[in-house]
């Protein structure tokens, strides 16, 4: 076990040294072989940056009632608003600049998607590790629940929960966590079952280390590769699901408009030809999901030991 840890810290230390092949560097050069995936990764970075810097780069504050004017409602893309600012992507039915609303919406969509993903990962990984390490009844019970839950589509589980819980950002996070945890549990159990039989786990156990330490310090780090792939795929899925639920009127309240809710708000103006209110937030949503999926697709190939040369 110490050998493995040494190997790890060694990898980090020498990665600054040019010319030496390290696991991380090998990973990077493998990843770069697919230009599409590199574009995906860069796009994800740009989107994350926009979301982080949102309030500082948005042209207007779409939720500041003092500056939003109903006279600006449904301006076409490129028209100037009363305040003199150009609405490059038009304005919505309440006179809010679409570009600014989208940047704020992106923050909420990403926040909900990533937040719920992280909580689901914590819960799912803990339960999956426990199931794999202890086996027996704990394993049967946890995996039965996982099996039953995964036999229903995610949207149905989320619909049931939201029908029960009601609206709100906390409730949608709870339902997204419930929808996602089972994927993490199943994935990590699969790899932990293999890792558990290896010698370093036996060594750690024979040093009389506590169960928790063996689980989280020894087993968990060696099961991370498939989890990283699941994280990307599930985050994209969660963002899409949140948008869908918000569109159905079951997700976020009007006071916290995510991209999905912006699309939903624009839906009522589609028939009268105000295409931009639904179209642009949708494109933003699509670009976000596709680029995360491209990264995930590539990670799956690069991190899969069976495909490695």
């Amino acid at each position: 076990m110490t050998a493995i840890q040494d190997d790890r810290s060694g990898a980090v230390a020498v990665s600054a040294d040019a010319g030496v092949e390290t696991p991380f560097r090998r990973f990077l050069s493998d990843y770069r072989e697919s230009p599409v995936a590199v574009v995906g990764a860069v796009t994800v970075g740009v989107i994350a940056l926009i979301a982080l810097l949102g309030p500082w780069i948005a042209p207007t504050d779409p939720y500041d009632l003092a500056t939003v004017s109903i006279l600006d409602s449904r301006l076409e893309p490129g028209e100037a608003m009363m305040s003199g600012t150009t609405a490059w992507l038009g304005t919505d039915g309440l006179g809010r600049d679409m570009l600014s609303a989208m940047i704020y919406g992106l923050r909420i969509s990403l926040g909900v998607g990533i937040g719920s993903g992280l909580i689901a990962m914590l819960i799912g990984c803990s339960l999956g590790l426990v199931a794999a390490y202890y086996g027996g009844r704990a394993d049967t019970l946890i995996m039965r629940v996982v099996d039953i839950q995964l036999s229903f589509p995610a949207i149905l589980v989320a619909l049931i929960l939201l029908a029960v819980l009601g609206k709100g950002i906390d409730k949608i996070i709870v339902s997204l966590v419930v929808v996602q945890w089972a994927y993490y549990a199943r994935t990590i159990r699969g790899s932990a079952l293999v890792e558990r039989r290896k010698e370093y786990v036996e060594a750690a156990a024979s040093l009389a280390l506590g169960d928790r330490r063996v689980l989280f310090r020894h087993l968990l780090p060696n099961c991370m590769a498939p989890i990283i792939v699941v994280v990307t795929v599930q985050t994209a899925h969660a963002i899409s699901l949140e948008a869908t639920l918000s569109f159905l009127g079951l997700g976020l309240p009007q006071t916290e408009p995510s991209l999905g809710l912006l699309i939903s708000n624009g839906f009522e103006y589609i028939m009268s030809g105000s295409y931009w209110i639904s179209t642009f937030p949708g494109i933003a949503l699509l670009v976000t999901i596709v680029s995360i999926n491209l990264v995930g697709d590539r990670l799956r190939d690069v991190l899969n030991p069976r495909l490695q040369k």
Partner: protein
Amino acid sequence: MTVFIIRRLMQAILVVLVMSFLVFAGVFVVGDPTQILVADDADQAERARVIADLGLDRPFHEQYLKFLGGALSGNLGESFRFNEPALGLILERLPATLELAVVALAIAVLFGIPLGTWAGLRPDSIVSKTIMTGSILGFSLPTFWVGIMMILLFAVVLGWLPSTGRSDEITTVLGFPTTLLSADGWSHILLPAVNLALFKLSLVTRLARAGAREVVHQDYIKFARAKGLSESRVILVHVMKNILIPVVTVLGLEFGGLVAFSVVTETVFAWPGIGKLLIESIGFLDRPVIVAYLMIIVLIFVFLNLMVDIAYSFLDPRVRLQDMKS
């Protein structure tokens, strides 16, 4: 074999029971439907009368047992909103949803299998790469947004197809009311069905591609070629047949997913099926309808899963043996 089926059946019944409890308990704690049902100016006596009428004043376990007893005899309560049996409301709208799901499934299979086979037989051609990139797009596109864009393009800009709703020209075939026998019916169902099919189309394409790549290297394909069969016969008969096995299995399971996902498509296209009814009922806190919808869907799923399990145990004895051991 019989033991296996009985065990699975018991499990299925247990799942339905647990789900019925969870759904009922969950929906029971949601908001207060009397706020909507009782007029604002009603007095205390009037309120109490409505609550007693609906059985909302009794303790939880009594309501649940009453619900369970009713459910077993096909009575899932009366809709607060329509004052009609909830089950009847669902069954009335079920044909519209099934029609949509069947057409969507047909689109997914009819386009997905040829596209996937093509991509599998010529993995390096540009067309194949386009097909595969397209399938990633199909997985990523949010269904509801694509639906809105389809309405925008085909109904608003081009004006080719009606934007929403289902045709009124309903004919009953073998007891199943359908709009598929009229041109008007097809013009209404085309957009929502394609919308619903997109996700499954990507799935079928990928399955067919994976299948084709595996099958072409098998000995029986080489043998068929060696016999001097024409290339089209090799592909249409020998390759296709063997791709179909995994595709059909997955589709059996995915049909339930189509019915569940039609909630989104039906809301976008105002398709009068059970999904739209569910969303409206959630808005109105119409508990009996929500519970009835969820129970019907759970039943459909448990039934499909059970069928697939049993079919598998016939095809692959290992599944059966493994289950016996655990």
